[in-house]
């Protein structure tokens, strides 16, 4: 159905949107670092070298070394992999469960199921997410998988609410009515007509949730409940840095910058996509 020309105009608009471009470049930078870390890092990020400990940045060690003499740049590269993977899967879980729930609630608007799903959502929003994530990981054991589950759970209501809200307004539209007249079931209409029309919204929200998940993963790792050693993670690097902050501030600065730049990049990209997907805003620009 899509022809080449709208895509090209979208691409042109995207490249002309400064926030989107900056966001894309910043996020791509860290995704690239994460991917490169699979095949190459300047040093082995787990190799201890006490003789080289707490070095400030040099030509050899770009971001300096930590209290065990490990190369900070290599650790940040591998840490990017952990953060991005955890956040990506967590948001994916939230979408995979939340979107169908939201679509179902919208299709059965006003029914008991709708009511239960929405009240359940309200309840989930009332829970202090970070506290519960800490509880889940502490009880079921710290580690990347439990961090994913803990963060993923809190993405479910976000996507359920978004999908329901967007779908509700579409159910009143003529093309949906036409599909119903044609005899399509509610499930089929949701999948074939509603979902493609709310995909843009979901992508924008997904980008924002991705950045929030990276922050949440860093917080969990900071309190020792994220990916476990020897796998480096940005949050735990910061926890290590805390006690040494007056001696070796670089240990705190670089992982912090890595988190900030990644999150900033994703947020700018999300905001940019929101503008680009909104034809009204695109024309007004």
């Amino acid at each position, binding site marked *: 159905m899509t022809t080449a020309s709208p895509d090209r105009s979208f691409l042109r608009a995207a490249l002309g949107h400064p926030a989107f471009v900056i966001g894309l470049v910043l996020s791509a930078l860290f995704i690239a670092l994460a991917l490169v870390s699979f095949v190459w890092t300047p040093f082995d990020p787990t190799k201890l070298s006490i003789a080289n400990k707490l070095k400030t940045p040099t030509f050899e060690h770009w971001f300096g070394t930590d209290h065990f003499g490990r190369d900070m740049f290599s650790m940040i590269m591998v840490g990017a992999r952990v953060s991005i993977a955890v956040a990506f899967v967590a948001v994916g879980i939230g979408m995979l469960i939340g979107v169908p729930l939201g679509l179902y609630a919208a299709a059965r608007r006003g029914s008991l199921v709708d009511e239960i799903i929405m009240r359940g959502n309200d309840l989930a929003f009332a829970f*202090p997410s970070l506290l*519960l994530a800490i509880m889940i990981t502490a009880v079921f054991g710290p580690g990347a998988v439990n961090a994913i589950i803990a963060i993923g759970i809190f993405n479910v209501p976000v996507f359920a609410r978004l999908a329901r809200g967007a779908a509700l307004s579409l159910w009143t539209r003529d093309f949906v009515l036409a599909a119903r007249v044609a005899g399509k079931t509610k499930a089929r209409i949701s999948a074939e007509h509603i979902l493609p029309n709310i995909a843009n919204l979901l992508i924008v929200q997904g980008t924002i949730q991705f950045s929030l998940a990276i922050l949440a993963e860093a917080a969990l790792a*900071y309190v020792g409940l994220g990916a476990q050693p020897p796998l480096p993670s940005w949050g735990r690097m910061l926890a290590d840095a805390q006690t040494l*902050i007056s001696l070796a501030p670089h240990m705190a600065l670089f992982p*912090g910058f890595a988190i900030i*730049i990644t999150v900033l990049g994703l*947020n700018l990209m999300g905001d940019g996509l929101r503008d680009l997907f909104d034809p009204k805003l695109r024309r007004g620009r």
Partner: protein
Amino acid sequence: MTAYLLRRLLSLSLSLVAASLVIFLVMEVVPGDPASFMMGINADPQAVAALRTQLGLDEPLPVRYLGWVAGLLQGDFGISYTYRVPVSELIAERVMISLPLTLYALALSTLIAFPAGILAASRRNSAADLSVMGATQLGVAIPNFWFAMILVLVFAINLRWFSAGGFPGWDAGFFQAIKALTLPAIALALPQASILARVMRSSLIDTLNEDFMRTARAKGLSRGQALRRHALRNALIPVLTIIGLQFSFLLAGGIIIENVFYLPGLGRLAFQAITQRDLIVVRSVVILLVFAVIVVTFLVDLAYAAADPRLRRRRT
């Protein structure tokens, strides 16, 4: 208004019941028997069984739930496994730090966000607007515990204006206590202020485009007068919602910041209790925070309805 109030009260009670059920059941599925945990690995099975009976763990599930709720209603949260004192005492002590910290952070966040958001909205697309929006983008991207560490590095270690952590207690004097809470409050307030400034800006921009604003200007009010008398008041509704939500975020969000600054608040209590599997304490803190959120949301809703009669009819 009375019918509205009753309806909202009913839904409030239902939410509270549902929340308590969820928390109770989650704690039930948590692996690990509190009694054997308390007695240690090498405990005599008979002693563990005796303790289970003493703790009431042998009772059927509904009985234990009702017993717990009945206790809650009387302010009895149970006895902590690790501290061996009533949880209500522990919580009362810790709230005296977490609540002031939350209010302090909320005040800071509002003090920063309001002027910034108003400035950005009233000079839309100006350099001031762009700087405010840029700063808020940065503000939401900075992890608050990292910001806290940098604050400690700059203001405690280098400048020596504040201490790096700990809390002297309210007995040490109001000023000393507030001083100890200042860096944590700033660290907590930063991301909240950024979010609030953005909400303020967009809400104000929406209001500025309304017809009544054009009327106000046509009546001869200056931009500033129209903004102060008509736009601000109307723009505040979404802003207040966010402030209400932030209160609870901050109360719970302290969990990390209190750990950074070694503040003996609710968050630190919860964190220690989680690592020590002191589930009674965990359950109590969680339910307290969830109740706080639900009640604050209820109060915010009520405040709207009092201010705007249209909302009374529209809400379900």
